[in-house]
């Protein structure tokens, strides 16, 4: 399941960045991918819809939310945890 979750998250981020999923690496930040704050909010909405989870994210303080959006890797890890917690 984890690989499937991971691939689906990457696909959502890649679509937002208008890139091929193979071009999205875990160490990339949203800025590296050309995703601005509104794009980030859109991606998070798409991830919430895809996995039926609620992501604690406030665009005013992206660094302070419990949900770490600094890199692709941190996003996929946080989403995988929320999906696992959901059961």
């Amino acid at each position: 399941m984890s690989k499937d979750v991971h691939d689906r998250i990457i696909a959502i981020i890649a679509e937002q960045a208008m890139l091929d999923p193979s071009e999205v690496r875990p160490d990339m930040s949203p800025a590296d991918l050309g995703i601005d704050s509104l794009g980030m909010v859109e991606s998070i909405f798409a991830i919430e819809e895809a996995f039926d989870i609620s992501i604690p994210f406030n665009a005013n303080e992206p660094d302070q939310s419990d949900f770490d959006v600094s890199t692709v890797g941190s996003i996929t890890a946080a989403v995988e945890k929320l999906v696992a917690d959901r059961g």
Partner: protein
Amino acid sequence: MNPTGLKAEGATGSDAAVDDAPATPLAAPVLTPEPPRSGLRRVVVTGSGTVNALGLNVPDTMAAMREGRCGITRLDFRDVERLTVQIGAQIHDWEPEAHFNRQQILLYDKFTQFSLLAAKEAVAQSGLAFHGELGLCSGVVLGTAGGGLNTWDENYRVVYEEGKNRVHPFVVPKLMNNAAASHVSMEFGLRGPAFTVATACASSNHAMGLAFQMIRSGGAKVMLTGGSEAMLCFGGVKAWEGLRVMSKDACRPFSANRNGMVQGEGAGVFVFEDYDHARARGADILAEVVGFAMSADAQDIVMPSAQGAERAITGAMKDARLNPEEVGYINAHGTGTAANDKTECAAVAHAFGHHADRLMISSTKSMHGHVIGGTGAVELLACIMALRDGVIAPTIGYEEPDPECALDVVPNTAREAKVDAVLSNAFAFGGLNAVLALKRA
């Protein structure tokens, strides 16, 4: 104050980088004097009215602003438990039955009710009656972003959730954005220009600016103007939640730990009047409206631009023939979002140069919430209070200085100060900016 680095972020589009080059510190700009304009009328404010979470009239609202009282509470309406944001500056003691009859309540959405009550207070203060000739050359221009949003929300619920196939016959006349302006025109017999402006969070500043221009150009003698919003319902707040810019705990404009805006509701309505007309009848003049400017960022649908805001600020001073040094107070847009407050401070710092460190700027949204399309109208009360009573309303909820908002934001406590000229800022989603300039009467 170092404005360098205080630049708008998130700019998109290929020209943005050029347009958004970092501001360099400037001496207080000296605006080129323009030749006198003949034929223009002076415009004064002779009445004010409001309904908002701080009070159901102007005296109560100004008292709350002086005390630095917060009108933000837990929201209370149907399905509120399904919202992630559950605070707002809601008018909890709103009783339409105290102000309107049964038939009127059926016909008036809450945003219209707020507008009418505020308009009645303003007209009563002005002492005007619009019989005969005066009614023909008087009008109304009001701002609202959502119009009859409660009516949309309630009736969508009826047809979609409850599956009914019939709605009340007055749904359309209740929800239309011009309903409030139309009912105000009918209430007082205003037969001249009457319309509604919808520019999101700048709606009422745009409305008041147009009212000012109409009287100044001789197109009307008296205009009722301001704006109204009643968006605190399940659908209204749910839509805002989506953007993830709302705070779940408090509105703290300019504070380093600010975490978003908090919605409010209510209305502000003013009587703008031709100066000679007001003078001839011996009216009590609350303030003079001396300038207005609007601009468009033409850049991004939600991220503000310091350059667009600065052009409106500078434009209003130029229109008013004011030098930056004459401005003592600015009522800020000050939403409490990360993006607005730093961008607005950068715009003010650049527009005023060294004088930016000497003027006061506060956001009263920390008290009455963001009244969206009505917010500039409620905030004009803080401008009138500054000019008339010499009391500067504070920015409450201020906890930590932010180097990107290094201006005198009048933190937490109102201040006594004599000011001769003020500005009121409004910067809307969509990049639409509207700034008014007023002087002491």
